[in-house]
């Protein structure tokens, strides 16, 4: 069952001369982990803003085509009505945080749902612990580092346990180990709770291994859409500026040199290391 579906979705920002996304038709199935990538300025962030109705309700502009998210038409459902089903983590956490304490920021969405106090307390603590900011809960979100602010923005969305989580480069300010831990948490929620995840990322080295489905955009259009192992095997993805994982790249280079490593394209260092170990042991 598709939880996000767009048909010929085209959007132009107010005052824009050309559409930022152009005839985008995609389908995201329930429970999928979808990775959206593509060159800087290709329309990834714009597409995410359509998923929770920020486009067209907040950004105005001209939206054409069809879009349904969690059975709602975003053109007729306001952003607040969608908030329960779709959580969006912005690229820049400063655009998202506003409360006087981190804890209050994380609780804000739940308060609006009218959740009982005890249950809210549990949910907030759960989200703060998952993102490793429990000890910071009484600090102001504006006095912590950029990386910690990103954790707060993620916690606020996780606390809502929405059906769909959309994350736009959510860990760009975090150190690599912290980023990896956050992606692990998101992956686990995806697998255990069946939450659909849409992740926008340039760093496929860190994220390709989690994805069931990859969408690559360029100049506002979708140019690849499907299985990450198949799509990242093609030369064309590299040409449009997609930084495929180094392990995947090394696999291709070795295959070209005649080293047989099997037909399943590896997406992580673990997978390629295993293939190489096998190659060494059989020789």
């Amino acid at each position, binding site marked *: 069952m598709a939880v996000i579906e767009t048909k010929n979705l085209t959007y132009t920002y107010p005052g824009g001369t050309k559409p930022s996304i152009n005839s985008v038709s995609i389908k995201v199935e329930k429970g999928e982990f979808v990775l959206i990538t593509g060159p800087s300025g290709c329309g990834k962030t714009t597409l995410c803003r359509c998923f929770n109705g920020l486009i067209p309700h907040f950004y105005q502009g001209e939206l054409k085509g069809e879009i349904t998210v969690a059975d709602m038409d975003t053109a007729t459902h306001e952003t607040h009505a969608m908030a329960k089903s779709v959580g969006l983590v912005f690229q820049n956490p400063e655009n998202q945080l506003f409360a006087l304490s981190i804890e209050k920021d994380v609780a804000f969405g739940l308060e609006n749902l009218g959740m009982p106090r005890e249950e809210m307390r549990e949910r907030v603590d759960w989200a703060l612990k998952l993102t490793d900011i429990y000890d910071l809960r009484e600090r102001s979100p504006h006095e912590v580092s950029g990386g*910690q602010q990103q954790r707060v923005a993620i916690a606020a969305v996780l606390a809502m346990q929405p059906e769909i989580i959309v994350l736009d*480069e959510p860990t760009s300010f975090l150190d*690599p180990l912290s980023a990896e831990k956050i992606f692990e948490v998101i992956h686990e929620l995806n697998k255990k709770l069946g939450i659909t995840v849409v992740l926008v990322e340039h760093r496929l080295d860190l994220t390709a291994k989690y994805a069931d489905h990859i969408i690559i955009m360029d100049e506002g259009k979708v140019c690849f859409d499907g299985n990450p192992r198949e799509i990242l095997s093609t030369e064309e993805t590299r040409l449009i500026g997609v930084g495929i994982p180094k392990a995947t790249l*090394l696999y291709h280079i070795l295959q070209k040199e005649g080293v047989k490593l099997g037909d399943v394209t590896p997406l992580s260092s673990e997978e390629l290391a295993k293939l190489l170990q096998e190659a060494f042991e059989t020789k």
Partner: protein
Amino acid sequence: MIEVENVHFRYPNGVEALKGVSLVIKNGEFVAIMGQNGAGKTTLVKHFNGLLKPSEGVVRVNGVETTKTSVAALSRNAGFVFQNPDHQLFSETVEEEISFALKNFGFEAETIEKRITWALNLLGLAQYRKTSPFLLSGGERKRVALASVLAWNPETLILDEPTIGQDYQQKEKLRQFIVQMQTQGKTVVIVTHDVEFVAECNPRVLLMKEGAVVADGEGREILTDPEVLVQSSIVLPQIAQIFLKLAPLGLPKNVIDVYEAKEIVLKALEKRRK
């Protein structure tokens, strides 16, 4: 040359962000400062152009103590690009943004015009010359911030997280640009979490932890040492991860480059076959 001698820095709220840092960055060096969030990386580089002054110890830039000169004078030599472009951008158009510093430094109109065109072309922003920076994507705004600093051609370039939001081609252009800066004898200091970018550039790496420098050396040595990296919350680059796992088969551990990795694997397989 940047000389840092036993520098301590305390923020007004009492947090000691630097706890006795000493290092020397020579002219023409390319240095990547890495380490976990809150390790003091940004605090340290803000001392290089006098934005922050040490609470204890001394920072000298080209022999002059930063406490004895102005940020304005230091900025002419050391251009700083912030982590978050929104902390830096304020003009109505990309063109005005880039011309701002050039005007302040007293460049002539003709030179300003040439520099703007050069910087915009270099960073693939020519089509946005008359656009408001705030209509651009996150990655594009980051490049506008970079263009505005490159335009005045400082001797030292300090880039805080330059690869955030940049796609592979933009990163490759940035890498080539840094190499070009180095051949002109310029100093480049980057603060970054991007291990794959550092692996491709192989600069000198300074690893920080809790306000101190815990490792200092060639990228390929530091990025392939899991014990050192884990204490700074850094993950090994993918190629290094693969070679760490292959080490029991007798392959070298300190490999970070894809093409070098290919040669090593091919040779090792050849040897096995014989």
